[in-house]
C-alpha cells in the first residue's frame, strides 16, 4: 500500500520520519533534512523566519509528490515544511521516499527538495544582527 504525507507544521521532528517512510516492500529509504546554517556568505545569521501561503503550498507539495510517483516506483513519499521562527541548527524541511531499489529513492528525494525549493510558496527571511532579508527576493 502506497503512502503520501504532505504537511506544513510548526516544528519538524526528524526522528519520526523513519517510521513514516518504512515499508515492507522497500529496500531503501532516502531522507533529506534542511536545517538552519550558522553562516551565510560570511555573515552571521541570528535566526530565520518562514512564512507559507498554506493552501497553495500544500497543493504544490501534493503535486510534487504525484510527479515523483509518476517518475519513479515509490512506496512512500513525504514532504513536510516548518513555518515560524527557527534557530540555528533547527530542521526546517524534511523530504523523503522509500522504494524497492536505492536508485529510485535517491533520485526521488533529490527531486522532492529541488522542486519544493523552486515552486512551493514558502518564504524565508534571514535575520542578521543589523538587518533582515527575504532570501532570493532580489536578483
Amino acid at each position, binding site marked *: 500500500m502506497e503512502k503520501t504525507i504532505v504537511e506544513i507544521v510548526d516544528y519538524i521532528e526528524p526522528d519520526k520520519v523513519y517510521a513514516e517512510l518504512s515499508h515492507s516492500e522497500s529496500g531503501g529509504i532516502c531522507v533529506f533534512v534542511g536545517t538552519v546554517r550558522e553562516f551565510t556568505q560570511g555573515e552571521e545569521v541570528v535566526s530565520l523566519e518562514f512564512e*507559507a*501561503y498554506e493552501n*497553495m503550498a500544500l*497543493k504544490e507539495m501534493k503535486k510534487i509528490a504525484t510527479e515523483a510517483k509518476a517518475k519513479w516506483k515509490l512506496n512512500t513519499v513525504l514532504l513536510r*515544511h516548518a513555518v515560524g521562527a527557527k534557530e540555528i541548527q533547527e530542521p526546517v*524541511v524534511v523530504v523523503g521516499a522509500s522504494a524497492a531499489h536505492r536508485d529510485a529513492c535517491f533520485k526521488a528525494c533529490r527531486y522532492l527538495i529541488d522542486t519544493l525549493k523552486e515552486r512551493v510558496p*514558502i518564504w524565508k527571511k534571514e535575520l542578521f544582527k543589523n538587518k533582515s532579508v527575504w532570501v*532570493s*527576493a532580489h536578483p
Partner: protein
Amino acid sequence: MEVLLFGIAKDIVGKTVIHLDEGGEVPASVSELKEQLISSYPEFAKLSSLAIAVNSEYATDNVSLGKGDEIAIIPPVSGG
C-alpha cells in the same frame, strides 16, 4: 477583489491584503494585475520574479480574474 500578500510583497505594500475595488480599476487579467501593481508599487519591478496565483494555482499572464477568485502575489519563493 482581494489580493493576498506574502513575504517581501507584504513589506513592499505594508499590509497583508490589497482591496483592489476600493475606488480603483479592477484588473481583468493576471497581466493587468501585474501592471497595476508595478505602477502603484514600483518596488515590485525590482524583484527577481513576480508570479500571481489564482485559486492557489500559479496563473499565466493571460488568465482572467473573476470576483470570486482567491488571488495572491507570489514573490520569489525561498522555502527549504
